[in-house]
């Protein structure tokens, strides 16, 4: 039987576990769920308050997980779960306990705390666990509405970019003599004003390209 590991950072309730469950059900796979409770390590103040908050979260997530177990039993999916405080060592230990797996699915997880373990991207987790890792967003069905929005955005900013390059750009030499390269305060400010506007317009156009060809989705967007 295939094994799928699902990992998500949880504040109140795991948002994406239902999708992972659906994928496990579709493949007839065993699902191992790892729930991460965020821990603030940078300050030493309010330790007792934070400990109390962590305990309350653990209880809430455990109660959710028990209800999830029941649902999995009804849907014919084998489930095991674990709740840990999100610290790099604890994370790596838990992942090793769930290994080996055919696939690791990552829900909402901030990877910054794992920088200590030299993990910055999902691909780094894949290397350490010797298993493919995908963001849940990559596995979700494509949203038709969002693609249409991307096309519209590309069209609008594409038109503005064309204006910038084919109408404004040929006049820059002339404007250099009049303002940009006069060595004056106004010239320097004009440069500072022009550059971010063009960068924003053209950058907004070009950022649509990886979205339309599905590159961003493969990478898991914000991971």
């Amino acid at each position, binding site marked *: 039987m295939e094994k799928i590991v699902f990992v998500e950072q949880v504040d109140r309730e795991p948002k994406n576990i239902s999708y992972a469950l659906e994928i496990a059900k579709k493949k007839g796979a065993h699902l191992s769920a790892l729930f991460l409770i965020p821990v603030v390590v940078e300050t030493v103040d309010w330790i007792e308050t934070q400990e109390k908050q962590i305990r309350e979260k653990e209880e809430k997530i455990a109660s959710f997980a028990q209800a999830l177990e029941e649902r999995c039993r009804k849907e014919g999916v084998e489930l095991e779960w674990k709740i840990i405080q999100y610290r790099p060592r604890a994370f790596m230990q838990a992942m090793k306990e769930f290994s080996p797996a055919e696939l690791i699915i990552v829900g909402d997880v901030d990877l*910054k705390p794992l920088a200590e373990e030299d993990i910055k991207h999902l691909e780094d987790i894949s290397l350490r666990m010797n298993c493919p890792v995908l963001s849940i967003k990559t596995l979700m069905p494509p949203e038709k509405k969002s693609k249409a929005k991307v096309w519209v955005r590309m069209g609008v900013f594409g038109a503005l970019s064309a204006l910038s*390059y084919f109408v404004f750009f040929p006049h820059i030499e002339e404007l250099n003599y009049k303002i940009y390269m006069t060595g004056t305060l106004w010239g320097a400010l004009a*440069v500072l004003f022009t550059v971010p506007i063009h960068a924003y317009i053209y950058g907004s156009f070009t950022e649509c390209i990886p979205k339309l060809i599905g590159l961003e989705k493969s990478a898991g967007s914000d991971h």
Partner: protein
Amino acid sequence: MAAGPVTGHVSPEQLQIVTQVLSSSPWNYLWVVLLGFMGGTLSGFIGSGGAFLMTPGMMNLGVPGVMAVGANITHKFGKAMMGSKKHGELGHVDKKLAVFVLTTALLGIKLAVWVNGYFFHHLGKAGSSLYVSLFFIITLSLIGGSMLKDALRTARGGDVGPSKALLKLSSKLRIPPMINFPVAGVKISLWTILIVGTAVGYMAGTIGVGGFIGVPAMIYVFGVPTVVAAGTELFLAMFMGAWGAFNYALAGFVDLRLTFLLYAGSLVGIYIGAIGTSLVKELYIRMVTSILILLCCLSRAFAVPDYLHKLHLIQLSDKAAAWFEMASKISLFASGGVATFLIIYWTFKGHFEKQRLVKKYGLVESIKVPSGA
């Protein structure tokens, strides 16, 4: 050549340089766009840099060093603003540390602009380019060599990360006043910050590199955690870029045509490079970076004899000068081209592998998410 005060006076020569470069061959428009694309892809891939390719690349096309740096630093300013828009929140930023480093770095940048401009006004295009090239050679050989050593050590299964010698030295320099930075969790001597911040700013202002120097400086000299260093550097990049762009523009060394042409390529490449980091193994990233940096360093070394010849410091035959110029161009464009090709190849390879998994495991239709479990 014109001589005069560095700021507030712009010679006619400065205004005509880019026109001459672009009109000498229509292909030069494309070369600058290509430089931007390669630089943007690398910048997105390794998280910082691109300057070590774009600035020397423009110099290879005949743009004097000071204007190449000016164009790049202005280009970086706009790109940093897009970067922060793309990434949203800045993450872990030690604002107190940022203010201290920024204050000294701005001073370093101002000094760098003055020095760069001084070389241009007193020694002309060749002098300016020679100064910037020598700076590149020293910096890139140290950084590239260190990164390659580190990457090879990791490939052999050794420790990850460069030597902690600088950190040990810095921790011994407990000269008061010591400043506490609670977010970064470190206490640093004010004098260390003054020296390092000014040095980082000077390097940023001289050759246009930013996070490439700033992030390692914060990690390996100050002992700041990686995540705080990266977040703080992003915060700094916008201000340092703006200040650098402002000062170079004030001195009349920013021709927006170069900046716009760089953007035409870089704002396409940067997204591919950034996405590539999620799809490509870290070790490949480090190997590519270190080898490319060393080849860029070599490219600049090939360019130095021609500048020395133009300054009448050495004698070179026309054939030898042409050979050195070709060697410099080929080593830069070929290495940048190969590195960019590899990044794009690995990115799309990773993308197609992910797509295969998505076909196998992906959900075809939306599901109804029940409340609770």
